């Protein structure tokens, strides 16, 4: 399996008042294509920060970050956003669907930003709706859906651009256990189809769906 991304002594710190707070400290990590990694650790251990940095929404201040062989740490912002637009999909704990858009339009949005042609967009979204069994819901607005359905739409939206990597920050945090199980099973199915997944979670049960568990504490990897 080829290497998707690698972190080399990656560090992230912020200034809070006069104090320098280190959020991530010397992270060394290699992720191969097709892996399903669960990041675990208590609140404040740096799980979300690590996901954001890997997802290029945030930057490491030190160390190296290579994604598909390209050095992300020395990239210009524009290039970086091209890269994550192409290869990364995000799933959030609070779903973060756009309230003003219907299910169909929410899923369609990433394609709009990739300048995909209208006919092709329609076909892709229709496929996705089909696959997730939510064709009947396509004209509803997010507030008309249950939490589990919203997260389904969130995942569909993350997948529509056919990414290599899905980053999921507590994807089941707002769901009940039955919905959680459904979502996790969906993730493991996607993983089997070849999508690399990194999730942050508190739940041992959810973590067990992954092929690899990484424990974080105070911004450092303590065990694998």
């Amino acid at each position, binding site marked *: 399996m080829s290497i998707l991304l690698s972190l080399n002594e990656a560090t992230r710190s912020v200034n809070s008042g006069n104090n320098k707070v280190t959020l991530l400290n010397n992270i060394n990590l290699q992720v191969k294509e097709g892996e399903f990694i669960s990041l675990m650790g208590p609140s404040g251990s740096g799980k979300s920060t690590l996901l*954001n940095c890997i997802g290029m929404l*945030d930057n490491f201040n030190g160390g190296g970050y290579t994604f598909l062989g390209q050095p992300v740490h020395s990239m210009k912002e524009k290039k970086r956003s091209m890269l994550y637009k192409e290869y990364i999909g995000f799933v959030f704990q609070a779903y*973060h669907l*756009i309230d003003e*858009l219907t299910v169909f339009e929410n899923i369609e*949005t*990433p394609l709009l*930003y*990739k300048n995909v042609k209208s006919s092709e967009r329609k076909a892709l979204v229709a496929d996705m709706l089909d696959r997730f069994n939510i064709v009947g819901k396509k004209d509803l607005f997010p507030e008309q859906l249950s939490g589990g359905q919203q997260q389904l739409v969130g995942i569909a939206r993350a997948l529509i651009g056919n990414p290599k990597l899905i980053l999921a920050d507590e994807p089941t945090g707002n769901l009940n256990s039955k919905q959680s199980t459904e979502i996790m099973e969906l993730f493991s199915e996607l993983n089997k189809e070849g999508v690399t997944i990194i999730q942050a979670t508190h739940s041992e049960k959810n973590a067990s769906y992954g092929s690899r568990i990484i424990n974080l504490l105070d911004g450092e990897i303590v065990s694998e």
Partner: protein
Amino acid sequence: MIKNHITTSVRNLWKNKTLSILNLLGLSIGISSVLTLLFSVYAYYTADNNIPEKESIFYLKTVLKNGDEYRSVPYPFLDVIKSSSPKVIAGTHLHGWGNIWLEKDNKDFQNRTDYADPEFFEVFDLPFKYGNSDTALKNKYSIVLTDKVSRQIFGDSNPVGKTLIGADTLNLQVTGVLKPISPYSSFRLGVILPNTILKENPNFVAQNNWENSFSPIDLKLSADTNIAGFQEHITRLVEEHYTDLESISEVKLMPYKEMRTDLMPIVDVIITSSIAASFFILLIILVNLLNLNTSTMLGRTKTLAVRKVLGSSKKSLVYQYCIENGILVFVSIGLSILLFLTVNLPRLNDAFGPEFGEISFNILNDYPVIAGIVIVGILSTLMVSIVPSLRFVKIPVTIGIKGKIDRIKNNFLLRNSFIILQFSIAILCICVSVILNRQISFMKSADLGFERNSILVGNLDLDYKNLDDAQSKFNALLNDLESNPYVKSVSTSESIPSDYYFNYSSYYDPTINNDVRMRRSYADDSYFKTLEVPLVEGRHFDRNIDQPDERPVIINEAAMRAFGWTSIEGKRLNYKDSNSTGLPIVGVVKDFHYEDLQEAVEPLVHIYRSHKELRLHRFLTVSVQEGHEISVENKITEAFNDISSRKTYVQSRLSDMVSGQYLLIEGILKSVNITALTAIFISCLGLFGLISFTAKRKVKEIGIRKVLGASVTKIVLLLSKDYLILVAVAAIIAFPLAWYIMSTWLDKFAYSISIKWWMFAVAGLIALCITAITLGLRAVRSATANPVDSLKTE
């Protein structure tokens, strides 16, 4: 993509319905007033566009040594110029000589009448609706009508070739109808007659000399004319022909196209201030929209962040926001055009009075105004969208997605200054309105020195068709009234309080060598009795003693003071350098307010004239016992229905005529009130946006304070305190300004109220209450929110 942007925009606007509607209202009102101002300016500048070759038209201006200027020159001057200079292509007089009565099918019409040379339309080639301008004034008995007059007399038909009877004797043939003329044009026309018709008028012939200046002259010069040389030529002719060169400094050749600004410099001021006002209104509504947008942007930080995660560029986010505001702005422009056409334009026409045509909006002519407003719309959209959205799209995704907006820095100084500015204007207007209101009610209720209740006034200058018949019927009416038990007194006079002519004479007292300029009027023996103006010395006129030929007079106290007399004993009103024995003074009346209270009571003299002089008196005044006004009114109206006249007899009450003097100032009050309302509405709109912004930013703080036990009142105060302070600062700025403006204004009134502190207190309180309600609406909502919701973490 664009479709997606538009859908999102419409859904966003719909989601914030209240705010969108408020914005729409504010924008529509603002833009429609800008549109009205711009349109007036545009209409003014293009009003004379229908006159071809304006560059080659010149007029003559007489400048006196004392600095006074006027457009008239002696009548024969034109002929002298034309015959002595080959450069004159055409030249014309244009002047009035009394407005002619025109009769058609036994109906009489009177309109402004001007007399012009047959060459008039060669100088001013005004477009004709019907007829031919080359020959229109060639025939002595021809008449040219403006569109308005033509409609009045002939309806929509083409009147060319039809005949009108002018002044009972002249058969005038209609030779042309002019196209509608803008009221902004320098032409104020009704009907035009050839001045050849005046050559038989003995009065005119007597004035047609080098001593009298009563007619403007306009010349069309050939393009190669040396203007400086022509001016010298004019100056030479003046020296050669003028009989009285003592008071005249020069006669100037002036370009016609600059005439309006030259003769009415105030217009330039009005135009400049209109443009400044439009700019200012625009600035205020834009700043408000900016404030409101900033506050709505706060609620969108999360959506913006999500869109960025999904791959949106910053540009695309800004673009979407531009479309959203563009929809708002352009819908407002649409509404404001509607508002302009249905409300503002008719009001604008009302302001000009219906006499000289009306301004209409015609897209073919006036498209530059619409184009201008569209450009303004685009620029405004860009400004109100780009400025706030740029600030928000810069927020890092990781912060935005959590909706943590309390970290966003803000430049309050600029916004606070605008809030203060807006409220200063609003409070200023309220102050002006309060004080003006007091002044008007003071003037309306003040003791004017004469009785105005239960006094009927009718006009007698009716252009009687048969004066002898009218006179005998009128005498019968007078006898009738005098014997009516409900009538206390009847009088006829040239003037009535609120309507005195501006006729003055200078009288001289040789014993103390004092010269006094006095306003002069004529009254019968019961004028002062009817108005119940008390005598201070002497007696009233008496029809049994006084002879009109001797011209006995009654003066007022002001006249006595002006002469420095203590008694009229043995005094007469003499003319200086005259051999006549002068006018005997029979009495002195107490000063009364024959004009509105803006004017001081000046020396005034009433000369005796018999009550039966129907031809000379202008008013019939009848004092009636209270409660019997209607029956007496009916009696008088009946009598006048029997007298045939061109004008209609109009019956009014003296109290209404006195109040009517304040119509103009009440109009001003009305527009001040509207301005105040608009200003406070727009200001509060901005304030509402700002407090929403603060409330959202402080949602967590409010939650924490409530958990710690703060009351709703405390929190409302916390949220609104800063803004109430701003309003207070605005008041502190506005008060001295209002005081200065109003005391300067009230100085122009001869009798005015004194400005009291409580007037400002009232104005301030009004502003404060409106502000408090606006702020309260939003603040209470935040303060009563459940802290459990606001403190919940994501």
